[in-house]
């Protein structure tokens, strides 16, 4: 561990860890040393000379090696020249003076010099108001300049560095922060310096220019207004903005952001510091991809089908119709004739009530969150059971840590994790990346393994074998079963693993060894790994357990699920086979009865239908009514259209009139995440909260409120008709009277609605979740508002000399990570390996010679990208083919090719890339107009590829 060093700054004695530089040391005692080029997250380079200080060290007596003393005080010999504080590391007994006349003169000189060519742009500059150059000039500057005004350097005003970032070369002070961010953190070395002297400027070296998913962050850390985003440019002055704490819901990282509002409009999205999640960064999708909220195509009123048309109706009409039709179906065909699918970017409150509606009111477990394509990933339970330990922070990992990334491409699936992993390697951690093809993370990896498609499970079993050989089960601390079966499954010679996976034995041993020896180890697995089936995650779990890397902070498994609340969806039990908190269905039903619910209908205890089964169920007539919340199967999986047309009654709840909504009988308009309260659970099981930033357009309501509206209407109807049957004619009760009705008052089975509905706010739903969902105990809104990392980083009052304009400090809550079951005692795990379900790359049908490797892209056909400039970054649908395969098919880059499987055909543009293994084709899963689901036959699909017609594109 680093030793502590005591030094004196401006007469203040302080102790800081070894390796701290003088700027950071001074900051700990509140002494400000102005900086431009230094950024606490980047290497010090000493480029701007703003941080000049006078430094002295104790004089050492050569004979004794002791400090020379005079009057009992050490003799200090000052360096003859001023030193840059950002590159000077503290040393014992060092004396630093930050405000001598000499220092002040130097600071004034530097500022005067920086301003020689700086234009008088403050009134039109977007950085004005949060600009370190302004602040430092006010605080340390000379006030006047001796330079000739007309001698300023003039450049063409903004030149695009990329399509999202513009550079104003007149304003740039050449601190190199942007270049260093791209090189050191983003690992996209796309920026550089060009020319010299007064012509010195920043350029983009890549093609397409500024090709990085993190480009927006450079505008944050630029200490002047040289870098601006096309998104925020000239939209508002920063002091007019009202920052509303929120989250990005695009991916499982769950970055903390602030929505900077001017009146009702979102002006920009800025990162909000959270040391456990996103540090002070966000990716470009989070920054530029939130325009869907303000789209003019948002639905504003409930719509109902009249003939061929969807016409506007009132909420009462909508709810009553839905209730009547659903109740009619329930009466005639039973609750199990109703099914619901909810999207993975809805909040926990929505999802919890959604499953309550189905389980308690309809008595049906036909719930899912997937679309029902053949390639649907299996629900990931191991990932949450073991999970990463509470207190995990990928940001802080470094020496002593091994991260094993398998079948994942964090750049596309969870971009900000890429920054963290890259940083971890810089701090001395080990990164083992195992994939079928190269990804950007390979640059950072300390060990890259390339396995054959479909053999990840074998590779992991190879690792397991080495771990068992090296350490036996001495690290196994959890209660487990199935070790014997596991050992049996591993009982192949290593050579067979090597020949199957194509990874050398040395590499397998090295990977297993670093994993086992590390103090902390995390396994990250993504979509490509999950596509290999649950056998893989089961084995990854066993690997973590046997190596003793579970149940503590910075250890465990991290699954990169697809969307912002994919973890919450599983936690809330929107799935056919488990209740909230992963409770088995029977026990979940019992608990409901215990809580005053009615006796569970049979349908509520049996496993329900998964999305895939629902579509068949509709066609076979078993499913009559469907409720789709925040999900659009008609575009993501066109094969569902027949079912959507056939289903008797379809309710779609969405923000937009999606293709699915166009087929609906009733469409309910939903409020966006920025218009409501809610909590979301990220990949690390951190529950975080969003707050309303703007009023919802028109009549939109939060999703949970609409689910409640339906539930209340149904219950009112059931109650009303029961009374009718009992006591002759009595007018049917309107739902309004139902609010806040005490449970358990009524006698008949259908009348007792379980815990009452009638939630007034999302926080009431959240408190019920906290009460009733295992794991969520105590996660109330008030506790979510606690900000544990206050003042760590981020823009802080009066400290703009340090981080001006970088990001917002977090005073609104960093979320709560609930413990994984592995951390609680008594949880037992099975090590028993599962059958490998998938066919491997070899073998198979000669008519379909190619194996599809699917890839998730960050910028894909995501409907939430609408109105965003990122749409220009969404590639046209393509298939990537290995050069040798392309040659034998006679396909060249840009040709149109037909990709056909047993299930269907897609016509795509061909790309030729040696990153794709031979015998495979790489197809992004969700590009606009070409959903991969059209050809998928299962988790792994085999296809035939042929060239069509002439060359196009």
């Amino acid at each position: 561990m680093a030793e502590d060093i005591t030094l004196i700054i401006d007469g203040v004695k302080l102790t800081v860890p070894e390796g701290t530089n003088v700027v950071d040391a001074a900051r700990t005692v509140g002494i400000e040393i102005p900086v431009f080029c230094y950024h606490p997250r980047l290497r010090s380079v000493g480029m701007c000379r703003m941080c000049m200080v006078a430094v002295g060290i104790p004089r050492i007596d050569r004979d004794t090696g002791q400090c020379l003393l005079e009057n009992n005080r050490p003799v200090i010999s000052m360096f003859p020249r001023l030193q840059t504080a950002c590159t000077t590391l503290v040393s014992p007994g060092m004396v630093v003076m930050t405000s001598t006349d000499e220092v002040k003169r130097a600071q004034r000189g530097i500022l005067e010099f920086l301003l020689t060519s700086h234009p008088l742009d403050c009134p039109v500059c977007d950085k004005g108001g949060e600009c370190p150059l302004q602040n430092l000039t006010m605080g340390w500057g000379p006030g006047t300049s001796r330079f000739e005004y007309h001698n300023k350097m003039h450049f063409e005003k903004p030149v695009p560095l990329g399509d999202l970032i513009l550079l104003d070369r007149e304003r740039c002070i050449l601190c190199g922060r942007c270049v260093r961010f791209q090189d050191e953190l983003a690992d996209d070395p796309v920026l550089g310096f060009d020319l010299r002297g007064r012509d010195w400027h920043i350029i983009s070296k890549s093609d397409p220019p500024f090709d990085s998913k993190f480009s927006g962050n450079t505008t944050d850390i630029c200490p002047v207004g040289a870098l601006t985003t096309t998104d925020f440019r000239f939209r508002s002055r920063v002091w007019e903005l009202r920052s509303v704490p929120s989250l990005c819901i695009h991916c499982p990282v769950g970055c903390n952001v602030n929505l900077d509002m001017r009146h009702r409009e979102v002006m920009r999205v800025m990162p909000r510091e959270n040391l456990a999640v996103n540090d002070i960064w966000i990716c470009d999708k989070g920054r530029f991809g939130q325009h869907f909220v303000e789209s003019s195509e948002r639905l504003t009123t409930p719509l109902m089908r009249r003939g061929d048309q969807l016409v506007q109706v009132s909420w009462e009409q909508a709810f009553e119709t839905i209730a009547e039709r659903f109740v009619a179906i329930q009466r005639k065909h039973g609750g199990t004739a109703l099914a619901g699918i909810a999207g993975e970017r809805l909040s926990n409150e929505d999802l919890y009530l959604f499953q309550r509606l189905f389980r308690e009111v309809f008595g049906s477990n036909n719930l899912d969150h997937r679309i029902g394509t053949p390639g649907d990933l299996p629900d990931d339970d191991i990932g949450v059971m073991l999970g990463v330990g509470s207190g995990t922070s990928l940001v802080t990992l470094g020496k002593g840590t091994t991260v094993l990334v398998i079948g994942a491409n964090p750049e596309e699936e969870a971009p900000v994790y890429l920054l963290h992993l890259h940083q971890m390697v810089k701090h001395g951690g080990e990164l083992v990346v195992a994939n079928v093809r190269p990804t950007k993370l390979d640059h950072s990896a300390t060990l890259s393994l390339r396995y054959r498609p479909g053999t990840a499970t074998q590779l992991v079993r190879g690792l397991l074998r080495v771990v068992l050989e090296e350490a036996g089960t001495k690290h196994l601390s959890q209660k487990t079963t199935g070790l014997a079966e596991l050992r049996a499954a591993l009982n192949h010679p290593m050579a067979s693993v090597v020949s199957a996976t194509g990874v050398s034995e040395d590499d397998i041993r090295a990977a297993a060894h670093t994993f086992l020896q590390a103090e902390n180890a995390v396994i990250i697995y993504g979509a490509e790994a999950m596509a290999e089936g649950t056998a893989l995650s089961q084995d990854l779990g066993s690997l973590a357990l046997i190596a003793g890397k579970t149940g503590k902070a910075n250890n465990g498994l991290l699954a990169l699920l697809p969307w912002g609340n994919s973890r919450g969806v599983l936690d809330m039990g929107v799935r056919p086979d488990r209740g909230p908190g992963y409770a088995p269905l029977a026990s979940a039903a019992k608990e409901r009865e215990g809580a005053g619910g009615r006796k569970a209908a049979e349908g509520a205890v049996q496993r329900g239908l998964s999305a895939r089964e629902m579509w068949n169920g509709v066609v076979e007539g078993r499913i009559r009514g469907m409720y789709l919340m925040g999900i659009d199967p008609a575009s993501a999986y066109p094969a569902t259209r027949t079912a959507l047309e056939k289903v008797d009654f379809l309710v779609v709840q969405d923000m937009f009139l999606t293709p699915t909504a166009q087929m609906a009988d009733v469409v309910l308009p939903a409020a966006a995440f920025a218009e409501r309260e809610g909590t979301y659970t990220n990949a690390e099981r951190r529950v975080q909260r969003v707050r309303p930033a703007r009023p919802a357009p028109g009549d939109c309501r939060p999703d949970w409120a609409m689910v409640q509206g339906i539930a209340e209407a149904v219950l009112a109807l059931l109650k009303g008709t029961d009374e009718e049957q009992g006591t002759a004619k009595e007018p049917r009760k309107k739902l309004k009277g139902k609010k806040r009705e005490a449970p358990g008052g009524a006698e008949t089975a259908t009348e007792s609605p379980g815990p009452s509905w009638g939630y007034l706010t999302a926080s009431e739903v959240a408190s019920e979740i906290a009460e009733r969902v295992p794991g969520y105990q105590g996660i109330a809104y008030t506790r979510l508002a606690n900000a544990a990392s206050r003042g760590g980083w981020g823009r802080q009052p009066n400290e703009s000399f340090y981080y001006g304009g970088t990001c917002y400090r977090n005073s609104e809550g960093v979320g709560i990570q609930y413990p994984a079951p592995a951390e609680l005692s008594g949880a037992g795990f099975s090590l028993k390996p599962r059958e490998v379900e998938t066919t491997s790359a070899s073998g198979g049908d000669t008519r379909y010679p190619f194996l599809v490797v699917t890839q998730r892209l960050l910028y894909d056909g995501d409907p939430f990208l609408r109105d965003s400039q990122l749409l220009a970054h969404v590639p046209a649908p393509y298939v990537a083919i290995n050069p040798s395969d392309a040659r034998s098919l006679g396909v060249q880059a840009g040709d149109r090719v037909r990709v056909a499987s047993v299930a269907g055909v897609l016509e795509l543009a061909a790309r030729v890339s040696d990153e794709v293994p031979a015998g495979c084709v790489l197809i992004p899963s969700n590009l606009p107009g070409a959903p991969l689901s059209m050809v998928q036959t299962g988790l792994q699909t085999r296809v035939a590829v042929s060239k069509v017609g002439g060359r196009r594109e």
Partner: protein
Amino acid sequence: MISELLKGLQTTGRYLFRQPVTVQYPEVKRPVRERFRGRHELKRFANGLERCIGCSLCAAACPADAILVVPAENDPEHPTSPGERYAKIYEINMLRCIFCGYCEDACPTNAIVLEHQYELSFYSRWDAVYPKERLIVPPDQGYGEVPPVLKELGNKSPSPPAQMDL
């Protein structure tokens, strides 16, 4: 007694032959002082471009929160104002304004000037919100003054937004 009466009428008599102080408003309007602060005008540069560069400093300075500026980027082919930025929307709510003149002080281009027009009465509250069209002077007049900082510069070239003056 008579003398007292006359004494009393003396003042009356004196004023009888003086210029009356009452002004027949609105037929007659008294001139206002040079530095009178009446309704704002948005000035132009001599080449007809708007002086206002949409910087919102006036809105920031305004103690009554009477000003709304929504900026936008100039079309380089047909600029509204010099430089890159102009005010797409510029509104002053005359019911809020206290005619303090801070906006005028804050403006870096001397675009907003409190002029001498003081007849501000409205039939509806919305009429009191003056949009840019009502504030801006016609293109061929009202060039306003060169900002003092530019005068000091003499013949040295100022920053692009203000170059028009010299």
